[in-house]
């Protein structure tokens, strides 16, 4: 007994003097014992958990209830934060409108629903005249043009989308002065560009921007789409060009309405719409032709650099394998010279003589 006590005291003394020998011994013993501890842990853990659970059943039940409530609350919060972050990112993206004059006033609005009319392709925004939105204002996103405000109330606005057959806008190809009129076809995947002379060089994938003439309802330099195909009917003086819209509107949640033009009186209220003879431009959109012919000035949109459209809501540029229909038109296809009013060629500044 005495020997053991003395031995214990010697061990304590050695350890307290910190020679390191006891630390080494501890380390080795623990290393040697750890496999056994791990094995035992596998055996004991369920037992321990069970005993612990039995002993704390009531407490665990309360804790479980609390944790479930906290988890549910946390999930709700998480979803809310995620949604806010997403909205924030979208709104931030909307603030950046490449190619659009920064001085143009704009109103950010949320797309609340699609237009209820079965005959129109539009979306309804949660902002209206109370926020300064007027009929005819362009609706854009950071990637490009979406459409224009077709109807507006105090708190809502309906945007007529690009592909609606009632839609028309004066456009130009790339940063050139090849200008024409873009019309909706009713097909979200295809717009029709008319007014480009048959001798004008058009390339697949070429970007189409708003031309933004003096009397245009759209400012210049807004990306609209890319050329996905073109053809010239026999004897026609203009080409019939297919344009793939840059945006998939169904994937958008926020848009910006440009309060353009700043002075609505500047836009003639009853100019002839070349895309839809017999209708007024107030109904169907833009008329680059009348603008250029009236003012005699060149297309102002040419001053801005065409922005690159790389955001997620944009469509990819058409592949080089896109079919180019060079066959003669069947006669039932669009025939710009027949559908457009006389003098249409005058309004195409890009046309070759």
């Amino acid at each position: 007994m005495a020997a053991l006590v003395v031995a214990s005291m010697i061990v304590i003394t050695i350890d307290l003097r910190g020679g390191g020998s006891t630390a080494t011994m501890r380390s080795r013993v623990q290393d040697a014992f750890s496999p056994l501890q791990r094995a035992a842990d596998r055996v004991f853990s369920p037992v321990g958990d069970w005993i612990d659970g039995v002993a704390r059943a009531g407490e665990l039940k309360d804790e479980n209830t609390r944790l479930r409530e906290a988890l549910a609350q946390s999930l709700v919060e998480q979803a809310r934060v995620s949604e806010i972050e997403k909205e924030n990112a979208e709104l931030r993206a909307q603030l950046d409108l490449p190619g659009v004059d920064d001085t143009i006033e704009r109103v950010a609005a949320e797309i609340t629903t699609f237009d209820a009319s079965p005959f129109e392709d539009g979306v309804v925004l949660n902002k209206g005249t109370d926020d300064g939105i007027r009929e005819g204002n362009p609706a854009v996103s950071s990637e490009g043009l979406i459409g224009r405000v077709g109807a507006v109330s105090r708190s809502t606005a309906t945007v007529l989308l690009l592909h609606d057959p009632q839609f028309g806008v004066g456009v130009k190809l790339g940063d050139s002065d090849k200008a024409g009129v873009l019309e909706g076809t009713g097909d979200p995947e295809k717009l029709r560009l008319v007014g480009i002379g048959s001798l004008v060089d058009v390339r697949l994938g070429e970007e189409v921007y708003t031309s933004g003439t003096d009397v245009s309802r759209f400012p210049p330099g807004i990306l609209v789409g890319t050329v996905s195909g073109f053809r010239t009917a026999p004897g026609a003086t203009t080409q019939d060009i297919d344009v793939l819209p840059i945006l998939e509107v169904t994937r958008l949640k926020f848009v910006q309405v440009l309060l353009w033009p700043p002075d609505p009186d500047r836009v003639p209220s009853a100019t002839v719409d070349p895309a839809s003879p017999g209708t007024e431009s107030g109904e169907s959109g833009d008329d680059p032709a009348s603008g250029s012919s009236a003012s005699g000035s060149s297309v102002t949109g040419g001053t801005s650099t065409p922005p690159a459209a790389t955001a997620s809501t944009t469509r990819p540029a058409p592949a080089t394998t896109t079919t180019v229909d060079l066959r003669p038109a069947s006669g039932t296809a669009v025939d710009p010279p027949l559908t457009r009013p006389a003098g249409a060629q005058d309004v195409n500044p890009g046309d070759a003589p």
Partner: protein
Amino acid sequence: MNFRRVVTLVTLSMAAVLAQTVLFPNLKAGGVIPDIVLVSVLVVALDGGPEAGAVYGFGSGLFIDMFLREPAGLSALTYTIVGFVMGLIRDRLIRHPWWHYPAIGALGSVASGALFITLGGLAGQEHLWALRSLRIVLVRGIYDGALATMVLPLGSRLLKKVPRVPSSRR
């Protein structure tokens, strides 16, 4: 010394240390872990007497010291003394009422705890000299008493099947 008994005691010691380091840290009562190694020392002391208790206490104490942060040898010294004293008490017990197991467990635990914090304080572990330590000693005494109620009879029964250490060594 009977080899089989030695193997049994070593196995018992390892099992106790294993349980102390793996199982019981998850089974706290009142925030306190019981001392199953001490209970195993009591088992051996009640079965083999003071010398066996002291030897087993020293060995097991040194073993568990390898897993504690207190100075090595502190548990060994504590268990040696407790094992020896409990062995002496066993020799003086005339009757074995039903409550003597929990009583021995609780008494041994409190004595062990008090000794540990006293010796630890003397060895420079001043943090052991605190009111919290006293609370731990008392709660652990109750826990160990309850544990001893089950473990001591089982352990005694197990060790009775193994030949004892020759009494001539006492």
